[in-house]
């Protein structure tokens, strides 16, 4: 039985990036050509891959009896799924598919990294089974997923902004939602991400202080997460006080995405697992 489950997990590791890549290509054809087979295929391809992804994570949870965000690979995979689900929700709600190419491409990149880094059995430590850990990680990954979505909309905002400012009317012009809508989506996602990340940081500090009093301050993962949190806090504060407008906020959302990727990859790869210093 375990053999069959492992075979499924290995197959899904391969199929998920392929599925997301196919969906991204379909959304790309839809964006650039605007019609044809891509119109019928894009959403079913993404929905099908997301369904496989949900199954994969459920099987992973049952297989190792722990929340599937213990390794970098698993965390990236959960973020990828969360972004895919958020995009599907946006598409369903707004009947709007022009942003699919960009967000699904991000999903593909995250899942590709997850599959490339995966394969090893996750470590089994007692803390991974606690509800506090699951809440902390869930909130952190929800926050990261929201920030990825914000970065996607931020990128599109900047492209359309440049088009409209320069009067060059490139491929983006006329195919995207209005600038105001992109800005609203971006700031909405930033707000959701910030609230989630604040919760994750709060829970994490509370848990770390109780378990490893004083030691957690030396964990680079925590330090980088706090730095990322501070970056978003400053961006949202400046926006709130009207010192920043859409363009600066969009740039901050892209910088935030870079910080998240650095935090997830560079810092974690120095260690074998999350919070390896602890």
């Amino acid at each position: 039985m375990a053999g069959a489950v492992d075979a499924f997990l290995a197959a899904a590791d391969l199929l998920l990036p392929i599925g997301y890549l196919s969906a991204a290509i379909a959304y790309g054809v839809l964006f650039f050509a605007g019609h044809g087979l891509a119109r019928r295929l894009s959403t079913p391809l993404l929905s099908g891959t997301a369904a496989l992804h949900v199954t994969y994570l459920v099987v992973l949870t049952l297989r190792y009896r722990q929340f599937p965000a213990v390794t970098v690979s698993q965390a990236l995979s959960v973020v990828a799924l969360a972004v895919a689900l958020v995009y599907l929700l946006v598409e369903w709600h707004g009947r709007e598919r022009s942003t699919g190419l960009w967000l699904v491409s991000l999903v593909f990149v995250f899942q590709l990294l997850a599959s490339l880094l995966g394969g090893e059995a996750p470590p089994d430590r007692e803390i991974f089974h606690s509800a506090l850990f699951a809440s902390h990680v869930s909130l952190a990954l929800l926050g990261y997923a929201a920030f990825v979505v914000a970065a996607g909309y931020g990128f599109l905002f900047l492209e359309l902004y440049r088009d409209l400012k320069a009067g060059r009317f490139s491929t983006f012009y006329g195919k995207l939602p209005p600038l105001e809508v992109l800005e609203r989506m971006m700031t909405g996602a930033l707000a959701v991400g910030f609230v989630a990340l604040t919760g994750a940081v709060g829970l994490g500090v509370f848990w770390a202080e109780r378990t490893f009093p004083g030691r957690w301050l030396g964990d680079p993962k925590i330090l980088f997460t706090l730095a990322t949190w501070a970056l978003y806090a400053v961006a949202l504060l400046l926006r709130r006080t009207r010192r920043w407008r859409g363009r600066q906020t969009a740039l901050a959302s892209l910088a935030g995405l870079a910080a998240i990727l650095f935090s997830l990859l560079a810092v974690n790869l120095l260690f074998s697992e999350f919070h390896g210093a602890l």
Partner: protein
Amino acid sequence: MTAAALPTDVSDPRRDPAAPPGEAAGGRFPPLLLIGTDFRLSPLALRERVAYEPEAAEDLLVSLLARESVAEASLLSTCNRTELYVLPRRDERPAYRSVLDTAFLPRAPEIEREGRLYVRRDAEAGRHLLRVAAGLESMVLGEPEILGQVRQAHELAEAVGATGAVTRRLLRVAAETGRRARAETAISTGAVSLGYAVVELARNIFSDLSQAGVLVLGAGETARQVVRNLLDRGARRVQVANRGAERARRLAEEHPGIETLPLEARYEALAAAEVVVATTSAGEPLLTVDGMRAALARRRPRPLLAVDLGVPRNVEEAVGRLANVFLHSIDSLDVLIQRNLRRRREEVPRVEEIVEQELARFSAWYRGLAAEPLVARLQKQAEEVRRRELAAALGRFPPETHDDLDRLTRSLVRKILHHPSTRLRGRRAGEGDEIERLDLVRELFHLGEEDDEGGGGTGGGA
């Protein structure tokens, strides 16, 4: 009346070796005749003379129908074209002469002599109407108004009883072609006029035009065009600032709901505006970078679309460098319009495909009116009913009577259909009145249309 020669540039497609094979041959298309002129052949002054207001159009159609030579007629009259589509009762030459004498020569005697008329026949005439409805023949490719004008032409012809089976069906097919072209392709998308280009830019920035304040500087023709486009597309808060109050007031009278104010109040008005369009010919910039900076500091931090259509320019170029201000000039709008036109041109092959599909549908409908296939389908349908009813009833009769019942019902059906079949075969499809009758027979017996390739519905006679 002597039969006049048709213009030499209009050869009969049935005899024209360049025409698509078999297109108009063999009763595949009704003997339609189109006579018209458009912006390519006639200057505006001439087009104005042969343009028909609705009332005059009604009179014209009634006069045409009173002629022995015309069975059905329809008139499409717009500022860019006047076209008459007629179904001749028999020979097309008297019909051509009737149209010329009634519609064109009384208003523009030189029009034929100067070669400003075009004539199309049969499938070419039908194809032309479908292309017109799809926007392919318009001065501005894909412009949307023509579809409404085709529908109005249909309504007008119906109202005076000038349509028959052929023109009614053709006008319906034309409207459907126009609808499909706009729904399935991008032939009508993107702004191709200055006024609409402003709307398009605004729609790329703001999610809801009705929530955006609009300030228009100037009250001339350009301002009028911009205001009309903005109001038509949902703008609700429009202010017009002009140096002369009288001109602004006239504009406000044309468009109730818009507010007028003196030009000096423009910077104050900017506090509530998301779109500002400058259209004056003022010698100095009306919106300076310092003035704008001060005005922007007083307003909500929303984007501002500034469009400078003035000559010389009304807005200082440096305004475009202010954060969240999108400044566009006539030149950038022209870039946008040319880009949209290029995209529309790229859609032409797809629209032509739709035209051909709809033309084939019309042709299939018409082929279904030929007497022989119609008789065959009538007999096949009757035979199917006979077999079905007989099968249902046989159980109630002794087996030895079944053969007799079969013979009896077969004979009944044959005798009932004998007279109508003979009458149908004795008439010639393609002549005005006959088409109407054949279509009626088909409607009455619910016989449907022939297959596109022309082979369907002819077999299986009783």
